[in-house]
């Protein structure tokens, strides 16, 4: 769209506007310095660090069991998957043989986490584009998952259910029943998400062709998760670097090639269906067995470097542990999906309106503690 006024003596100036750190659309304490010409975005510069806790430095003084609970506080919407990532790294380094029961339970809870995270995303994304009611419908369904977590893990968000070597304790006797109830419930509610929002003409106008990210840019910017897959970039860690019980189940990788906000939206909706199918395949076949393998009370990793990728609800989480053979890691690095996804915000928002910025930011699904770590 050509927005310049030709042959005009009108003088216009670009101006700065401070979006955040307290702003409804930034979902936390992200601060964006916008350069705007009228309504058109010229530049977006994120300013981070408002809740940086330096988890990486804290990890250097903690034991390996203690690191796990810190990762709850990174991407709190997929805390279980974060825990799993650290545990997998430690287990691989120690070359522990993890019981199948643990793998299956981890996978089920991981997929439940993904659904819960996407439910919340759907709610707040609707709110960002102005449909306030979606928030409550999304939360209604997420609430059931949170109850399942609370009953089994003892906490709703920061679960800390994994320990290196397995799970902290066995699943609750009601777990299977409640999960099946949830799947049955959610199968009736997810189509409602589509009727309420997906088909809506206003919503489609707001989303289609907004925040376009090409496949090449997606790879170059290190986009992962639904953001990458919305651009046609096949990047599902569960497929390429399979872990836990993902090799035992069949599921499709949700892929869309448009690269706009609507594609990212559709990818997430489809991921919820895939997650449900994964849970259904596993929930009746949880193998019997132990939920822990014995580890030393003080875990010492062998000297070396260990890297583990997992697929959180937001994308690829990498855990890099550099060990010198002591009980504390020498260096821990978390490659968080949100950090890379945020870095492409400037790229996709420039040229759009303020409303477009909000819409594309909503489909990036940023969680600020994940970026700030």
């Amino acid at each position, binding site marked *: 769209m050509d927005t310049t006024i030709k042959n005009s003596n009108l003088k216009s100036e670009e101006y700065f506007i401070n979006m955040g750190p307290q702003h409804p659309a930034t979902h936390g304490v992200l601060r964006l310095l916008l350069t705007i010409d009228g309504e058109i975005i010229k530049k977006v510069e994120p300013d981070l660090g408002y809740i940086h806790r330096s988890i990486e430095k804290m990890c250097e003084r903690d034991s390996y069991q203690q690191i796990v609970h810190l990762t709850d506080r990174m991407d709190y919407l997929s805390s279980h998957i974060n825990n799993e990532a650290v545990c997998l790294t430690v287990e691989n380094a120690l070359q522990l043989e993890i019981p199948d029961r643990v793998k299956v339970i981890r996978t089920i809870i991981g997929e439940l986490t993904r659904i819960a995270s996407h439910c919340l995303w759907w709610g707040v994304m609707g709110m960002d584009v102005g449909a306030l009611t979606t928030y409550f419908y999304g939360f209604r369904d997420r609430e059931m998952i949170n109850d399942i977590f609370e009953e089994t893990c003892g906490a709703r968000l920061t679960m800390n259910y994994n320990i290196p070597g397995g799970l902290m304790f066995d699943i609750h006797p009601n777990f299977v029943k409640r999960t099946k109830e949830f799947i049955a419930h959610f199968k009736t509610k997810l189509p409602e998400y589509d009727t309420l929002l997906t088909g809506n003409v206003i919503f489609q106008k707001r989303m289609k062709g907004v925040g376009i990210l090409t496949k090449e840019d997606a790879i*170059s910017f290190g986009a992962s998760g639904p953001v990458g897959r919305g651009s046609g970039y096949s990047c599902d860690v569960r497929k390429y670097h399979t872990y836990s019980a993902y090799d035992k189940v069949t599921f499709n990788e949700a892929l869309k090639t448009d690269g706009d906000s609507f594609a990212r939206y559709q990818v997430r909706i489809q991921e919820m269906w895939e997650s449900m199918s994964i849970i259904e395949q596993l929930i009746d076949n949880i193998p019997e067995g132990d939920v822990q393998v014995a580890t030393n009370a003080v875990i010492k990793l062998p000297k070396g470097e260990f890297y583990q990728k997992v697929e959180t609800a937001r994308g690829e989480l990498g855990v890099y542990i550099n060990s010198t053979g002591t009980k504390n890691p020498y260096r821990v690095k978390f*490659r968080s999906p949100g950090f890379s996804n945020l870095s492409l915000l400037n790229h996709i928002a420039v040229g759009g309106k303020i409303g477009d910025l909000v819409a594309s930011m909503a489909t990036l699904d940023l969680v600020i503690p994940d970026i700030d770590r």
Partner: protein
Amino acid sequence: MGLMKDYKTEVMTNQALQNLISIWIPDLEFTEEGSQFLNISVKPEQLHQLLSQLKSNNETSFDYLFCLTGMDWGKELGVIYHLESTSHRHIIVVKVQTEDRENPTLDSVCDIWKTADFHEREVYDFFGIKFINHPNLKRLFLTDEWEGFPLRKDYVDEINMVIK
């Protein structure tokens, strides 16, 4: 959809990678010890050449920089690049270190992978490594007036750091 995609692609072996890459630049150090990937140690002056070749070469085509880690090895500062190829699906790790702790400088790889922009700013913020040719090298997380680089091993902050 419906069609099951084949996710098992032919991966170049580490040995083949090593053979290929060692032709480009002679004095690289290769090791697989203590790591699940092939590690390459490179001198700072050859870093940019190696990395751009790793990306542009069709046989390697490491187009996905999935992790950029700043490191403090005690004596040296450095950066670890984790690279993956989205077409071949092999992974390689490139390490670079500099012994200059007062004014460490390395080449920026922003022009090769755009994601390096933020990651290098993070490394600059926490380790104080300056990246030459970085378009916008300023503090990312910390305030501009912050003194010191917190993730270095010799950083001391008696008020905020709780040491057990």
